[in-house]
């Protein structure tokens, strides 16, 4: 894979945007991988949390294209275990916010069966809507 | 004329500098070894530690004709005597408040950290201090003692 690290765009660079949104310092991550080791949603992610952070460190603008932040269940396990005190769930949230602000749709109400809709607990629905709409 | 009569000359600020032996004084020596040039307005008194500087010395310097004073020692955490520079910092801060209170410009008294490797920093310190004190004009708040 060829990775270009320069940014040709005049927008606020992604890393800066994410750091401001999550109030975390991405640079302190030393890529130990602890966040990824314990992530319950890891099997469904297209890039593990540490990989997303690595991409952000390099300022790769396509980091927003990964589905992982939308797979993240906000379980806080990674944040609790990060040796460098990075609140990784906040980084995930920031990536979601960046995606939402650029107009992505992750609710997909039509994808939820009617029957299931009535069985889900209220908090599941509300939480999902909140995560998917910002 | 060797010792200039200051009244006849255009105003040249006189700066007295108290330097600790281990860092700032060595830094000043290094500026010399590197042949950096800086204004001759500064006169150095070598002390073992910036913690030795009595605020009274600074008042005395002004009374005797100085227009500015520099106190310089090792960087925080690098004091040869563990924390003498911290003492200096505390004393100088208090003094500066006091001077400010009686209307003396704080820029006339400067505390700086200069390591033995910072010859350039020392030269720059002298340069900027001389310029700032020159801009303030001669120190006239205290009646000078007769020379």
């Amino acid at each position: 894979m060829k990775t270009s690290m320069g940014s040709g765009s005049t927008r606020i660079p992604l890393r800066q945007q994410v750091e401001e949104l999550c109030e975390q310092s991405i640079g302190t991550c030393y890529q130990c991988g602890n966040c990824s080791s314990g992530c319950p949603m890891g099997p469904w992610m297209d890039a593990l949390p540490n990989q997303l952070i690595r991409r952000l460190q390099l300022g790769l603008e396509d980091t927003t294209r990964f589905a992982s932040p939308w797979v993240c269940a906000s379980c806080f396990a990674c944040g609790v275990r990060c040796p460098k005190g990075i609140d990784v769930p906040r980084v995930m949230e920031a990536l979601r916010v960046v995606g939402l602000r650029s107009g992505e749709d992750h609710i997909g109400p039509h994808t939820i069966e009617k029957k299931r809709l009535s069985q889900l607990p209220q908090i599941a629905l509300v939480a999902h809507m909140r995560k998917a709409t910002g | 004329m060797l010792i200039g009569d200051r009244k006849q000359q255009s105003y040249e600020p006189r700066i007295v500098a108290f330097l600790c032996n281990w860092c700032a004084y060595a830094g000043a020596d290094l500026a010399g070894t590197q042949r950096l040039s800086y204004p001759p307005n500064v006169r150095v008194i070598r002390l073992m530690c910036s913690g030795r500087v009595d605020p009274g010395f600074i008042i005395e310097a002004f009374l005797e004709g100085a227009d500015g004073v520099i106190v310089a020692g090792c960087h925080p955490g690098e004091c040869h005597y563990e924390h003498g520079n911290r003492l200096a910092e505390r004393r100088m801060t208090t003094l500066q408040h006091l001077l400010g209170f009686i209307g003396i410009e704080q820029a006339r008294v400067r505390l700086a950290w200069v390591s033995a490797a910072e010859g350039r920093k020392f030269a720059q310190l002298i340069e900027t201090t001389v310029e700032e004190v020159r801009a303030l004009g001669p120190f006239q708040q205290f009646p000078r003692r007769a020379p």
Partner: protein
Amino acid sequence: MTSLAYYPGCSLKRFASGCEIAGLEAARRLGIELVELERWNCCGTVFSMSSGERMHHLGSLRNLVRVQEAGYPEVVTMCAMCQNTLRQVNNEVRGDGDSLAMMNRFMDEEPAYRGEVEVLHYLTLLDRLGSEAIAARVERPLTGLRVAPYYGCTLVRPPSAGIDDPEDPNIMERLLEALGAKVVRDPMRVECCGAYMGVSKPGTINVRASAIHGSARNSGAEALATMCPLCAHNLDAVGPAPDEPALVVFYFTQLVALALGAKPEQCLAATQRVDPRPLLSTKGLLEEPQP
């Protein structure tokens, strides 16, 4: 009788009513009056973690204002997610005067929040009473019932909103022991059940539930105890893959009420998919307690 403000949250009024009914009954039996707030709204469910989305915290804040105006220093929640969101919002505005001032301006129809309310989880409340005091009230000891507490995420994480150690909590264990149950310390007890991911990725939940049920079963548990409607839904209503056995999933409050002598029909929820009665009956826990 101690009386405290009580915030139920939406799920406890519908999906997880079993949790609330049993919890209130248990409180009554312990001499605690939980006074439901006259008006309350959604807690917000999830705490918005990005600096640009603080407005989402207004919902939580309104509830805290109502506790303040009702004159209570503390508010009790049963739902793990409610306590988590309310606590996090509370922590945030307390730590940041500017943000509190701004939020207060936005809530112009409400009195200003002063940041003094404490959010308390039901488990913390019981823990405060102390194991001994609770043990003394037990009428139907849960002897022989092998229960694995399941905390999930929001009861213990992030640490600033958790009620116990994030990796090795013990509060439910302590209380269950006081109720006479055989406590099983399951290593998966703080691992996520999949949370709301079931909405968009239903398949994930079975996998998570299988892991959690399997681990608890391996550790020798017959039942799981939880304090979160979402966990209960994922572990019970969705549950492990169809070909795998599922344990009974209790709301913790149900076990407390049962042990304190409440009638089984009072504390068993109609919504429980895996019927707890066969298990309880083998342990003699459906019978009337001996005086």
